[in-house]
């Protein structure tokens, strides 16, 4: 049975939306802040004196469910001191295309040498570029992800609430 009035009413709803401000965002021009504890690209850390915290123990590799960490250790020598103890990671690689960002590596590390950061913009054109080397992981991420203020809010305020 035709219901012309209802049909027009329905169109009316659609029509009204055209003049409202949209709640979707124009990514990448606008970046939504992430939760402070969001798990993104990893970071390897150094002590203040410049030595690497990582000793190349491979415990992170053992914990990793995606099997995407490769550690090849070597011995520190007096002329080539990389980390504090006897051993350091000569090669440390994470294959970001396999990582599921579970954070187990961070939990496993006995030296707090690896943490997961907030950076999530890690797409590349080639798969090879997804393999992050130790130098890349030791350096701060190039792109910056906005993080919600952990002091004020535990969680970022959703955009639609701010703009309602």
């Amino acid at each position, binding site marked *: 049975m035709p219901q012309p009035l209802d049909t027009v009413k329905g169109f009316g709803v659609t029509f009204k939306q055209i003049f409202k401000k949209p709640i979707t965002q124009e990514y990448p021009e606008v970046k939504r802040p992430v939760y402070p504890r969001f798990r993104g690209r990893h970071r390897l850390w150094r002590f203040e004196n410049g030595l690497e915290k990582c000793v190349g123990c491979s415990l992170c590799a053992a914990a990793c469910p995606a099997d995407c960490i490769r550690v090849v250790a070597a011995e520190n020598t007096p002329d080539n001191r990389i980390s504090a*103890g006897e051993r350091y990671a000569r090669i440390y690689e994470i294959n970001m295309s396999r990582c599921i960002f579970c954070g187990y590596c961070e939990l496993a590390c*006995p030296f707090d040498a690896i943490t997961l950061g907030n950076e999530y913009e890690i797409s590349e054109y080639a798969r090879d570029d997804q393999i992050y080397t130790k130098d890349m992981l030791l350096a701060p991420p190039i792109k910056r992800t906005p993080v919600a203020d952990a002091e004020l809010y535990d969680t970022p305020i959703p955009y639609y609430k701010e703009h309602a």
Partner: protein
Amino acid sequence: MSVPELVTVSVDGREVQVPKGTGLVETALAAGIEIPVFCYEPRLGPAIGACRMCLVEVEGMPPKPQAACTLTAQDGMVVKTALTSQLARNAQNATLEFILVNHPLDCPVCDKGGECPLQDLTFRFGPGRTRMTFPKRTFDKPIPISPTISLDRERCILCYRCTRFSESVAEDGELVAVNRGAQSMIATFEDEPYRGRFSGNVTELCPVGALLPTTYRFEARPWEIQTVPTVCGLCPVGCNVNVTTREGKVKRVLSRNHPDVDGGWICDKGRFAFGHLGARDRIVDPLRRQRRRGLQPAGWDEAVDEAERLLRAAQGRIVTALSGSETVEQAYGLAKLMRTGLGAHTAVLPEEISDAVDGFRLPLSAIAGAELIVVVGDDPVEERAPIVDLWLRAARRNGAEVVTTGVGGGAKACRQLAGEDDELGRRLRESDRPVLIWSGSGGAGGAHVAACAERLGFGSKPDSGVFYLPLTPNGRGVVEAWSAASDDEGPDPDPIGLLFVSGDEAASDPSVRSLAERADAVIATTMFQGSAVGWADLVLPGTSYLERDGTFVNLEGRLQRLRRAVVPPTPDELAWISQLAGRFGVEVSPYPSVVFGELSERIFGGLPYGEVGERAALRGREPTGELRAPAPAATPKGRGLRLVRYRPLFSGAAVERVPELAFQRPAAEVQLSPQDARRLRIKAGDEVDVRSNGTSRRLRARIDKGLVAGVARIADEHAEELQATVEVARA
């Protein structure tokens, strides 16, 4: 044998029946209950109860925890382990807490981490936290006690497994415990490097990361490795080993206890020589001699074409020199190509092995239970087949008598033994469990000892045995395979059109070299540049035993499986033998399993490849017909001492390429008997000149009580050009 009396023991309320005298640890295991241990290791002799990890409560004994490893099962014993006894649980907790008082807990940097009994037992039995908060005792670490082993004294828990091994298995006495109380530590005698043929075994025995192989230092973690069960291919013992690989590279070699062959020990050559796989002068491309440009790398197609051309040009006048380190399948494939494809039946075989010894076959482990053992020959057993030396030591500890005879004339000694009025022969005849071991030089040794054993009545004694120690790892298998390929015979070619040299050992054999000088062309397959590059016209890259699939026959006659641990950098021998054979209308499969299937029909009684097994069984005795010993070779006469050369264990193409083993290479020494030394006024350690017409070598003298007078023994690599009789004088 009498049936052992069974006793009933209750462990945590479970009743088990075990033979009387079984250790309590094994008894509990039979009941399905684990008693944790650190120091207990039956292969090291009687338990010493050093670590106290195995404490249990035994009813009827004094009301204090008992060390289970020192007790044996008695009838009606009631044992309570930590599972049911609070006393035992407290005791074990305290033990672990004490063990960890001074333990550095550097698991993240320790190579044992992940496969460490201390980690595992602490995790499963310990209290979980410590009450000791004072600073730990520290030592300098790590200390290299030899170029292959490092010692971390902080990690040591003083279980004394290593010193017990050194004292009562290898009997070298080089590892000792020094100081007392908390300052006790393991050290080498007089802080000298631990030089021994079996030193590497302590790294496997140590239940913590205190003794570790330097070659594995920081190389891999247990969760990053693969393990390949194979056999060692460096000497005729054929120890069962596990090869650890990571990312396609061999990282270490561990023993894989075959109780009949090696008893869980391997020598340092087998353990540390794997480094030769990545040697700098390893050949990875075929090399072809081109006019005026010398040997040039060539592609595989080109190389096979060239090999075909050279083989055709020789028109059957071909000699094949084999190394004795080929797999049975390779040797068979090559033999089929040469013998059925080209009609070339002449070969330089690695040894002359008589089937006759198979009539007195015994497993190696039987040596430990023998009563009287006679070793015939010049070569020190430990240089030729080191594990046999461990079995001999075990036999001696068990009360057997080991006699060495026939240095400088094994064949003659065999005749003498078999004679009517020889004292030693008479005792061999009377003994129930006599063993004869041939470790002499010269071919036909097998026939000599077998004939001797036959005349001494070994045939009727099932516990008697004869062992022939070959010079090459798979000499027996290679010889069998070569003869299985064809029944035809052919005349020796003269002149030689083509010499085919298979393997580095054959290439470094002086007699093969002299054949090469007479040959029109030479094809060689070697692993290393150094071996044949100077004189071959075509060099095909070879592979190592760790890179091959196939079978080996060890000195007992045991057929064992070799498994490929890592992929070689070049196609393996069987691949191109098969290709080449195809060009001559001979069918050789490139797959070892297929080749084995074919030859098993002929020589191994149709045993399927899959059933060779991980712990291979030994075939039974195979009596041969009447035995006659060949006439002994004439002993050279002349003034002075007779030179006896031996091939040291730590020599050969593989060992030379491993820098860590350089310290084990034989010293530049000449061994003299005490009588000769006295006569020549030479003291141990003196510098002496060894001369034989025209050549002279300056060596250090060593006095060896086992040597007979009139003989000077020198390692091959130091004897070099010396002739059969030498004069020795103080320098």
